[in-house]
């Protein structure tokens, strides 16, 4: 029992320390540059770290900034705010009210960031997001907003560098597998400016991309000679002392992981001239209780194995980038009954994206996504009993000033839930889910 008290005191101490450090940072001198917090900290323009200014994709320098724990620069007021206003139009919103909604959301979401350098070796990137359209009131049908935890990455990093060696290593406490990754092919980063309106992604996706703000993880990583990146992490459900990482998620909605679940990542990176390329692999195993409110008994086992690659050409005024990510998931139900018809299933997710930005102002991108997998009538109750969903997303955007972006994306589906036409048995076609999404994104 004494040991429990010590543990409890230890945790209280860490929280107290965190609070003191935050207050100390808040009281440090204000640098009055009209830029978000990392830019204020380094005094640099957003394009230094973000490829062609396209948040959140990082340049080589941005990757080093992140991997050295957000510690380059001068400690400043560690606060930023971000807001998204949007307009969504579905091709055929009426026939399935469950998800194909039209919306003019003048204020869709807003975030507060507590981010930046804490000490020479410790930095943080944490985000709390207010979703203005979190849920609809059952009685009136009116939308209700809610604050919730978003990305959280608290790092300790150090770097040994000299004429012939360059060794960065660090640790991170975070709440999403692959959030720590510096490349945009990571499941946590490949899709940005999301909306809950319309249909903007396949419904089925690997477990690795579904654990954000559900879990607490500890990561150890290294980047050697700016060539080899290796990361090992362990994730558990973020409850108890770590519930602040999943604040805003109701416990019945929170994925309940059994024990500690490993995530491993390896990547090779090479820069030459204005080019930068990366090829990598990732793996995650997760055991999940079928009933999140009752974490006992048999679990469903997910094994995600991924390969990804990224290319960037950055030479003012041109920015060209390309991403590829393929994740194959095996789902084994073991003794779990009732969640699927098959004892095991597979799910494959392919994502491709290419973008071009001129003068860090005018940009266009084209994405392709294809999700395929084994058929299972319980998991996928539509006619084809299959997750197969494919489509294209063209996008154009304009960044008139570095902390404001206006963009329009069009999600065009060629297949949905395993069929291109009449996928739901009621005459709804894949293209009825096509969605136009216009957004205005701003940060300070």
């Amino acid at each position, binding site marked *: 029992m004494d040991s429990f008290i010590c*543990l409890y005191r*230890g*945790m209280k*101490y*860490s929280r107290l*320390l965190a609070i003191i450090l935050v207050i100390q940072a808040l009281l440090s001198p204000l640098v009055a540059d009209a830029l978000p917090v990392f830019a204020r900290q*380094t*005094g*640099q323009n957003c*394009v*230094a770290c973000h490829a062609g200014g396209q948040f959140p994709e990082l340049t080589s320098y941005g990757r*080093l900034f992140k991997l050295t724990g957000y*510690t*380059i*620069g*001068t400690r400043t007021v560690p606060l930023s705010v971000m807001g998204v206003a949007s307009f969504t139009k579905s091709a055929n919103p009426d026939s399935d009210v469950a998800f194909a909604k039209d919306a003019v959301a003048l204020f869709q979401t807003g975030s507060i960031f507590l981010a930046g350098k804490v*000490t*020479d*070796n*410790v930095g943080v990137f944490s985000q709390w997001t207010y979703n203005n359209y979190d849920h609809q009131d059952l009685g009136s049908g009116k939308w209700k907003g809610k604050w919730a935890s978003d990305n959280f990455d*608290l790092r*300790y990093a*150090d*770097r*040994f*560098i*000299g*004429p012939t060696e360059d060794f960065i290593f660090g*640790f991170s*406490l975070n709440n999403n597998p692959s959030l720590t990754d510096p490349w945009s092919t990571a499941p946590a980063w490949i899709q940005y400016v999301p909306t809950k309106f319309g249909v903007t992604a396949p419904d*089925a*996706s690997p*477990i690795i991309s*579904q654990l954000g703000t559900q879990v607490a993880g*500890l990561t150890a990583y290294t980047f050697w000679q700016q060539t080899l990146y290796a990361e090992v992490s362990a994730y558990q459900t973020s409850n*108890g*002392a770590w519930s602040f990482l999943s604040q805003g998620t109701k416990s019945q909605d929170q*994925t309940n992981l059994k*024990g500690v679940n490993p995530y491993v990542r390896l990547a090779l990176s090479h820069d030459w*001239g*204005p080019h930068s390329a990366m090829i990598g692999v990732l793996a995650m195993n997760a055991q999940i209780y*079928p*009933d999140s409110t009752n974490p*006992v*008994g048999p679990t*469903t086992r997910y094994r995600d194995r991924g390969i990804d690659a990224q290319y960037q050409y*950055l*030479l*003012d005024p041109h920015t060209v980038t390309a991403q590829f990510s393929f994740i194959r*998931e095996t*789902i084994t139900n073991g003794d*779990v009954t*009732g*969640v699927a018809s098959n004892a095991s*299933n597979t*799910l494959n997710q392919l994502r491709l994206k290419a973008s071009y930005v001129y003068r860090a102002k005018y940009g266009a991108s084209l994405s392709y996504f294809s999700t395929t*997998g084994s058929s299972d009538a*319980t998991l*996928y109750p539509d006619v084809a009993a299959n*997750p197969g969903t494919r489509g294209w997303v063209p996008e154009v955007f304009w960044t008139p000033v570095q902390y404001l972006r206006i963009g329009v994306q069009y999600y065009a589906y060629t297949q949905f839930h395993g069929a291109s036409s009449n996928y739901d048995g009621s005459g709804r076609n894949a293209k009825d889910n096509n969605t136009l999404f216009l957004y205005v994104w701003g940060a300070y």
Partner: protein
Amino acid sequence: MNSYDDCMPAHRMVTETRTDTRIGHLKRQGFHFSLSLIVVAGLAACNLPERSRSLGDPNVAAKTLALQVCSNCHGVQGISVSPNFPKLAAQAEPYLVAQLKSFKSHGRSDPAGFEYMWGISARLTDDQINGLAAYFSSQAPPPGKPGNLTLLKEGQKIFEQGIAANNTPACTGCHGAHGEGIQQFPRLAGQHADYIVKQLMVFQRTDERPEGVMMKGIAHELTPENMKNVAAYLEAMPSSP
């Protein structure tokens, strides 16, 4: 989960005994504790000035800043990989001092300057500026990079003789016979061609580098083709002497 209708089984299976649950609880607490320890250790870590990335601390040595911060773009030995960033190796020391001071005072305001360097230089002390200039100027000069022979030949002519027809003087007069730089006139030999072309454009078309006002007149008559040729020649120049 992978189901898109959020179906969850209604039944619950209780197989663990009370002791199992308690052991599980203990294990979880252990996990929490080890996480706490690492967080506390991280937060409590004292400053390590020999490996600091702080830009507002006068106690951080210039060499530390060169390695921990400047090298991210300019390379550990001053030989940058990306042509977005100039090579600083063996650059004339007085030129480096003048540039850092010009960034710091916002005198130099070309995009490459204010986007990257204003912030980096904002709080550097004179000692740090002198130390950084000494560090990079003492590095071995960058080796030449092979280029297109036609461009090199045309570029060499401009570098050595200038363009008599429009009174453009030879570069050698100020930058040295081998482009090695003299005092406040920078080394050009081995520099990225793209960087040289962009800076010639800045001199010719803007007033963003007032300290280089002399170059405004010199670059005045250069055509984009002239700039490309001379830049290719400079990038290819061997590192000696």
